[in-house]
């Protein structure tokens, strides 16, 4: 709500009677009203043409009404369920309910002789205009299932329910958005989830005040503990296995209709650097790739600031063998290192941004043109040095290894302040920036849960699945920082039992 809300504060002119409501809805051309008079039964059907499924309407409703109503001598709304083969026909007399349901794709049936109660039949065309499948191309993994969430929440819930085969999986439905009335579902596994966390989540989701929920990322921002932090508070993913893994670990998932991304939380920093593939590969390989990824993040954040710091202030640090190549490549560059780095970093950002906005086929060409031609040309034109080109492109490459898109954006962003710190105070500046980063991360919370756990607060036992992904006998316990009600995921003794040699 903005400061202008004061001016807009007026009584909502909700229609009081059904006639008023229909009058209002009739302004749209896609609002259809059909009148019937069959054998003295005078009734009408009203619905939004654009929302209902015409096939359902014809086969399940119109067909039966026209054929079977004439068999009755007296017919009221309550008898509809007898002849119409649609599950759960709602009988209501509340105008407000009718308004919301009509806008969700229900059809309204009313009889002239009964002006007190009306029937609502669900004819919503749930899949119209939505894609049927998602190959999770934005979070690709070579091994493992490729099914991703789609825009339809029904499909998404189905995907979850199919994999977690327990009555303890609970979906709680809420409606968010004053205008979009989006269906939002909070999913959790009862008996694992910490009650307090769940309470926090539900309370926060209920407190959300927004007009249209375009995507879960909006909910994500509205829910986050510190909305001015560049770090994402929750993992948002389109992979089913990720969400299932989070639920089983004792986290909450939030789904919204119309969004193929699902939020899971409370998240920790490590959650953003784990990929489902870590679990599909043998633990040695999984751990190795995870470490590579983390090294990549460090490199990506620190490489260009270190270049700036060393070449601006601490050139004594360059050994004499390395001095030759650096002098050779930088001798014609007229800019100070800071400008040189900023120039290249911004070029890369432009390439990335342009690549993301353009159609896939054009983007590929652009990548090649931008990456190779501009890079080579700028070196030859002595705008940047060869060495820096290598450093910056390696850093860019490393930043894209992060599995969660939001985190990879954050990593691309935070290097800019660090570059500035480095250009002001050299190495000490970088240390300052790291300090600031660590304090900030230490203060961050996700649904009231510390962000840096298991590093701070230290939970030694939870390190089994952090820097490295230990083998499955060691990850039988759920992470303790989520305070799950039951700790064991499976029986580790059965898995751990070792036979003696030759037995």
């Amino acid at each position, binding site marked *: 709500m903005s400061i202008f809300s004061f001016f807009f504060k007026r009584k909502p002119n909700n229609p009081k009677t059904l006639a008023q409501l229909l009058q209002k809805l009739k302004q749209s051309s896609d609002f259809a009203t059909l009148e019937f008079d069959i054998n003295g039964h005078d009734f009408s059907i009203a619905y939004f043409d654009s929302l209902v499924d015409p096939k359902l309407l014809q086969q399940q409703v119109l067909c039966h009404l026209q054929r079977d109503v004439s068999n009755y001598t007296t017919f009221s709304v309550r008898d509809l369920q007898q002849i119409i083969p649609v599950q759960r026909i709602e009988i209501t007399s509340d105008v407000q309910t009718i308004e919301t349901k009509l806008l969700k794709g229900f059809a309204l049936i009313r009889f002239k002789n009964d002006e007190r109660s009306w029937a609502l039949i669900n004819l919503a065309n749930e899949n119209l205009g939505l894609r049927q499948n998602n190959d999770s191309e934005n979070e690709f993994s070579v091994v493992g299932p490729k099914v991703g969430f789609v825009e339809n929440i029904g499909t998404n819930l189905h995907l979850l329910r199919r994999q977690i085969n327990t009555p303890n999986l609970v979906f709680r439905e809420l409606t968010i958005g004053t205008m979009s009335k989006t269906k939002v579902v909070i999913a959790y596994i009862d008996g694992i989830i910490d009650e307090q966390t769940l309470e926090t989540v539900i309370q926060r989701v209920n407190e959300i005040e927004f007009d249209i929920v375009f995507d879960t990322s909006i909910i994500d921002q509205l829910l986050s503990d510190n909305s001015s932090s560049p770090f994402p508070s929750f993992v948002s993913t389109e992979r089913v296995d990720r969400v299932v893994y989070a639920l089983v670990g004792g986290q909450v998932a939030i789904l919204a209709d119309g969004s193929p991304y699902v939020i899971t939380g409370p998240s920790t920093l490590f959650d953003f650097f784990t990929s489902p593939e870590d679990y599909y590969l043998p633990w040695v390989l999984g751990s190795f790739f995870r470490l590579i990824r983390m090294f990549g993040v460090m490199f990506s954040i620190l490489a260009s600031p270190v270049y700036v710091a060393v070449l601006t*202030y*601490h050139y*004594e*640090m*360059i*050994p004499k*063998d*390395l001095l030759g190549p650096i002098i050779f490549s930088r001798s014609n560059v007229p800019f100070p290192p800071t400008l040189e780095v900023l120039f290249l970093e911004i070029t890369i950002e432009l390439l990335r941004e342009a690549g993301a906005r353009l159609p896939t086929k054009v983007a590929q060409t652009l990548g090649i043109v931008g990456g190779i031609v501009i890079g080579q040309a700028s070196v030859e034109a002595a705008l940047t040095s060869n060495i820096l080109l290598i450093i910056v492109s390696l850093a860019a490459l490393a930043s894209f290894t992060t599995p969660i898109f939001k985190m990879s954006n954050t990593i691309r962003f935070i290097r800019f302040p660090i570059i500035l710190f480095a250009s002001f*105070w*050299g*190495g*000490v500046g*970088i*240390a*300052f920036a*790291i*300090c*600031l980063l*660590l*304090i*900030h991360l*230490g*203060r961050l919370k996700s649904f009231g849960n510390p962000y*840096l756990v298991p*590093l*701070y*607060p*230290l939970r030694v036992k939870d390190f089994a699945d952090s820097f490295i992904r230990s083998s499955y006998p060691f990850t039988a316990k759920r992470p303790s920082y989520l305070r799950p009600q039951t700790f064991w995921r499976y029986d580790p003794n059965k898995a751990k039992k070792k036979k003696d040699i030759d037995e």
Partner: protein
Amino acid sequence: MTLNRERFFISPFFVFFTVHGAQIGIGVLSFQRRLNEKVGHDGWISIIVAGIVAHILIWMMYQTFQLSGTSEDVIQLNIQYFGKWLGNVLNIGFVCYFLLLALIVLRLYIEVVQVWMFPLMGTWQFSLILLLLTYYTVLGGFRSVVGLCLWGVVIPLLTIFPMLFFPLEYAHYRNFFPILDHSMLDILKGAKEVTVEYLGFELLLMYYAFIKDGQQSHRWAQLANGFTMFIYLVVIFISTVFYNEEQVKHVIWPTLTLGKIPEIPFIERMEYIIISIYVLVVFPIICLAIWSATRGLKQMVSLKQRLSLPVVLITIFVASLFFNTREEIDQLGKFVSTIGFYLVIGYIPFLYLLALFTKRLKGKASMNERSMI
């Protein structure tokens, strides 16, 4: 209320990081020279002696808290044992000491940066940015300060500490001999000199209230002190075998000079990296001291920390601008370390004895009462 406060507490284990992090400060860069003046190559004995004294003092602190029963920090202790007036005078002294501690650590670090890296840079720049960072940290509460202490111990331990071993390539192990070449008195003098390096554990007097099961943390505090002693022994060992006795007298920061020795193919002059990462060593001390000072003010006159923090930081910022020359900084350092020395050597045992006798007297009184009945 108590349940609510539990959120801000730290587990006993973290006392290891707060105590150790506060002990190792800027002094470790240069203490070899000062030690060498007193005891020459027998410095390591003094370090052990001082370390044991520190162990005993930590034990006394924990005993005092246990004996006092209700008091949870030094502010309450002072009022409990010295009465309201005298106690509050002592409390003001403590707050001032914490502020001075923050000031001297800040100024000494800036001096190192100025000498080694940026000779022309004004003090105010670093002072400002460090204090802004302090503001952000302390605003996050004690837990965020402790988080910083954790990083301030772990990261330097993983980066700076291994670098110190490179000079062993040029070691002369005979520098140690003859062992016990100096008199007992010299060794004790050296121990007095080096006790200052163990300072920092006295901040425990302030944040004891924030430890979950305070007494549980005793062994962690002792372990932290032991670890500090271990680090000092390693440093003095490497410096003794690397430098010769006369040479150390002319090196102002022997530990930093040790950092010049390592060489890897793509980088040289490691001391720059050491000085940079040293931010993480000094910064937790500043934050802890400032937090202690503001917390003290809150306990004393119930001044909100949110209000006192900016005032305290501005005071320190202004104060840091007044110390410009080596002599001034050195004098300030000597002043603060003298106060600190007498604080731990004089005040803590005195308080302990006082607590012990009060307890005894009370115990006897109640015994008498019981026997009367």
